[in-house]
């Protein structure tokens, strides 16, 4: 039997790029992009900001997390038109010039980045948490990164790093690892 491809001739639509103005990491960019292209695609392909990662294309892995006016959103499920006039922050905008954000320092020091692919998204979710809640509990931290999948680290080092960044990274940083960083009861029943 011959299986005719189910595509329609002429697809995709003749390319009609739309001009969109975006505020990303404090700078204004006007990009010409196809209007159905996601914020993720525009960040990576039009602006060359490849720190934000593709992971699943359906909003389940969190690798593409960016902040929109400080709120963590999935850039793979967001259209650039929806964030017009809002401030988008990506991992590239986290450091202050050469000075790393305390979260970045803590992630590097604690080994919270293993292969590092989930790290940018994880950092953005963590930043939103600490901006809203500078002294998060373990439960808060777990809530905040529950939508960011990591296949390498086992997560322990990640919330250890968040805790370290929260406490200023000094010697008083609460040692969570191996001392019973319990998971709150997640039973819904």
């Amino acid at each position: 039997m011959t299986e005719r491809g189910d595509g329609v001739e002429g697809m995709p639509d003749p390319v009609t790029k739309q001009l969109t103005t975006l505020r990303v990491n404090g700078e204004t960019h006007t990009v010409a992009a196809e209007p159905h292209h996601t914020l993720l695609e525009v960040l990576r392909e039009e602006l060359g900001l490849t720190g934000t990662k593709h992971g699943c294309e359906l909003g389940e892995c969190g690798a593409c997390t960016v902040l929109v006016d400080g709120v963590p959103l999935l850039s793979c499920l967001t259209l650039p038109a929806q964030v017009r006039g809002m401030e988008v922050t990506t991992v590239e905008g986290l450091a202050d010039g050469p000075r790393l954000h305390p979260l970045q320092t803590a992630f590097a020091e604690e080994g919270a980045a293993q292969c590092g692919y989930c790290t940018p998204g994880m950092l953005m979710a963590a930043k939103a948490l600490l901006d809203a809640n500078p002294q998060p509990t373990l439960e808060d931290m777990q809530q905040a990164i529950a939508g960011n999948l990591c296949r390498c680290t086992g997560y322990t080092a990640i919330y250890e790093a968040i805790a370290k960044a929260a406490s200023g990274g000094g010697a008083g940083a609460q040692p969570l690892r191996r001392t019973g960083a319990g998971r709150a009861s997640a039973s819904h029943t």
Partner: protein
Amino acid sequence: MAVHVARDVDDATRAVAVDERAELIAGGTDLMVEINFGRRRPGALVAIDRVQELRGISRSGRVRVGAGVTYTQLLADDAGSAALREASRSVGSPQIRNAGTIGGNIATSSPAGDALPVLAALEATIVVRSVRGERRVPFAEWMTGPKRNGRARDEIIVAAEWESAGPKQTFMKVGTRNAMVIAVASLALVVDASRRRVGVALGSCGPTILRADRAQSFAAGVLDELGWERQAAPTETACAEFGALVASAARPIDDVRGTAAYRSHVLSVMAARALARVAVLG
């Protein structure tokens, strides 16, 4: 594909009315997946996520939650339904809760939509509007099948409304992991003491959100005896029988998330626990 960012509801209703290829987008957590996978390529999009009018919660007597209210907002601003809060907390991830809206849940009408059993148990009314006017649809008549409902293409869901039902209510679900859980089975139980009414609704247990009428009557009988306003636990036997009646209302199937048999079983367990839990709330 053009994207029109609507200023207000009228703007949005007009925009969908004039362009019959236009589809609505709010949080995008469902529609964008379809677009990313090339399963849908709307000719035009009308974005309603910035329409302020859709983002309010009011509780003057009747509760009204705007369709554009996100799950994060439902957790921050009390909509007067403990069950809805519990359901909102269990939706996806923080990122999904920041984008996803209750209106989106209503529009997608997935049997696994977490807010839907709660709206069903609350006997909420869905308010939709188009250039042709406004319609109010009881939730019981809203869903017509899995991911199908009575919304016309040019209609915008503007709000869900219900009578405040008091503190005796809960939402429970079982999934296969502890976060980003899609329900294998879910259940909402609302005991409206002032109206002497029990609402039970099941998610992920049939083609639509199902109600358990016999279980509701049974629970009402139990509460008649215990006293509706009191905080008293029903007997274990009563809870178990309630659970069995709830399970008998399910029409589950075997699918990738779980088996029909397990769904029925776990529904009976959840229902028994739910009744025991809400009966002592006050």
